[in-house]
């Protein structure tokens, strides 16, 4: 079974600017992969190459085993752009109907109803896009990407315009999609969001992949902190497994132990370490 998205040696140059410098990345079936990186790291370029909006200078991108910019590949993926807009005079239902026709979906009204319910827009079915808030439009964008039940979803900052409730809706939606076996490549600046929902995280910097792994793998141990009658001590380089031994040694040494804390670095700290504090 080919990966939902397979990227090999992907490179892209815009004149003198190297947006991607040879990236390898897989999104396997049913996997939710988060793409992180500072502005200009190449995240959007990678997603745009994957959905055929941008041509790669070098390397390959395949969706479910077919070339990413082919019509066949486009039948297998849904995409939500970072900056998108639907015509203001269309209703939510009409937007989905248009995309059903273009994606050759046979879902009909039932699919539209399901999608609108999924993104919490069931009551806004007949509402025109121009009468919707930015958050509602964003959720409609997510529904649009899901038209035709594509096996791969490419989401570029899907929660950027959403309030906390809207973000939670999208998060729950992503978990629901994972349970259905849909693969997702999620490009987001919200580390907490990525940490909560993604199976794997890839961090890009200057067009290169600088870290990759599950959130747990990336969140490394920073040591064990033990509070004793002599004060608080940090045992750097130790892990949770070392805690009983450390406590036993301290007690044997005559110390009174009042508390033990295993310190792990958050994804945010790992991210900041990987990108060296760069923000743009």
């Amino acid at each position, binding site marked *: 079974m080919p990966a939902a998205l397979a990227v090999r040696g992907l490179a892209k140059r*815009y004149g003198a600017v190297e947006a991607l410098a040879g990236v390898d990345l897989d999104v396997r079936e049913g996997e939710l992969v988060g793409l992180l990186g500072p502005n200009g790291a190449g995240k959007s370029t990678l997603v*745009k190459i994957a*959905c*055929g*909006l*941008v*041509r790669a200078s070098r390397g390959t991108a395949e969706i479910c085993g077919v070339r990413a910019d082919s*019509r*066949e590949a*486009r*039948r297998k*993926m849904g*995409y939500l*752009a970072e*900056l*998108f*807009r*639907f*015509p203001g*005079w269309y209703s939510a239902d009409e937007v989905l109907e*248009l*995309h059903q*026709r*273009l*994606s*050759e979906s046979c879902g009909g009204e039932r699919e539209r109803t399901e999608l609108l319910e999924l993104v919490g827009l069931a009551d806004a079915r007949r509402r025109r896009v121009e009468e919707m808030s930015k958050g509602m439009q964003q959720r409609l*964008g997510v529904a*649009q990407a899901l038209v035709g039940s594509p096996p791969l979803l490419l989401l570029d900052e899907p929660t950027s315009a959403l309030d906390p409730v809207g973000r939670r809706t999208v998060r729950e939606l992503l978990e629901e999609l994972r349970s259905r076996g849909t693969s997702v490549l999620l490009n987001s600046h919200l580390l907490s969001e990525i940490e909560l929902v993604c199976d794997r995280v890839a961090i890009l910097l200057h067009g290169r992949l600088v870290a990759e792994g599950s959130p747990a793998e990336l969140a490394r141990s920073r040591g064990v902190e033990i509070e004793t009658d002599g004060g608080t001590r940090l045992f750097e380089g130790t892990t949770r497994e070392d805690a009983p031994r450390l406590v036993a040694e301290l007690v044997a040494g005559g110390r009174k132990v009042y508390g033990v804390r295993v310190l792990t670095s958050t994804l945010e700290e790992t991210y900041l370490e990987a990108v060296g504090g760069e923000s743009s």
Partner: protein
Amino acid sequence: MSSVLTIAGYGLREALRRKVFAVVLLLTVAFLGLFWLANHFLFEHIDNVAPPAGIDARGFAGATIFGLAMFGTLFLGVVLAVFLTLGVVSGDAERGLLQPLIVRPVGRVTLLVARWLGAVAVCAPYVGLVYLGTMLITGLTGHWWPDNLVTPGVELAAGVAVVAALSLLGSVFLSSTANGIAIFMLFGAGLVAGLLGTIGHGLNSHQLERAAKIAAWLLPFEALYQDALRQLTAKTSGLTGFLLTLGPFGGGYTGGTAVRLWAVAYLLIVGTVAAIGFTRRDL
């Protein structure tokens, strides 16, 4: 085919919703009102018209004022075509309208063809209706009718379709504003080509006439307009026929089947260049 119809319908709906369409309709009503007024005064005092020797005053007045209407119709059609197509690629991509459509299993070439068809589906009937309206005004007010009733209107609509194709081509490479300016400059160049022909004829300069002809062939919407003018008096021969084809902004010096065939070939060339440019463009 269904993708073409879906996108064409999308473009058609966009065209009818846009304010520019309402503005053009208002301008059209104003134009037709003024045109009726001009016809009314002209034919009420037809005895004051002094045509060149040997030419009927009513025919001379009718062909001249209807030639003006032909130019007005072409101009309004071009305004509509340009505003409907000037931002189809760059403009829509900047606004984020294009990306959700492009990532669907619809080829970029299909999208371009469909958007052109959508624009033509609005502009061609519009041009046809304005042409018919002005013809009825001149015919009923002045009792003068063109020798050929249908062909000039079809050629005007075809000229507007050529402008729509050029505007689509421009939208692949230029921002909306730059494209709009470029297309209106091209339209102006066509106008100048027609005037150049008239000046060349007045000065008896074959070189100027030749330059005007080359310019009209390079911009076939102008050549089609000139051929449409020729069709007004297609059955009137000799000097009379020639004088009657002199439109207010240049006469019908270029025309014939070759021009019509060239316009079709030109559309194909413009479409091919646009398709190649769009296929290679990053969005």
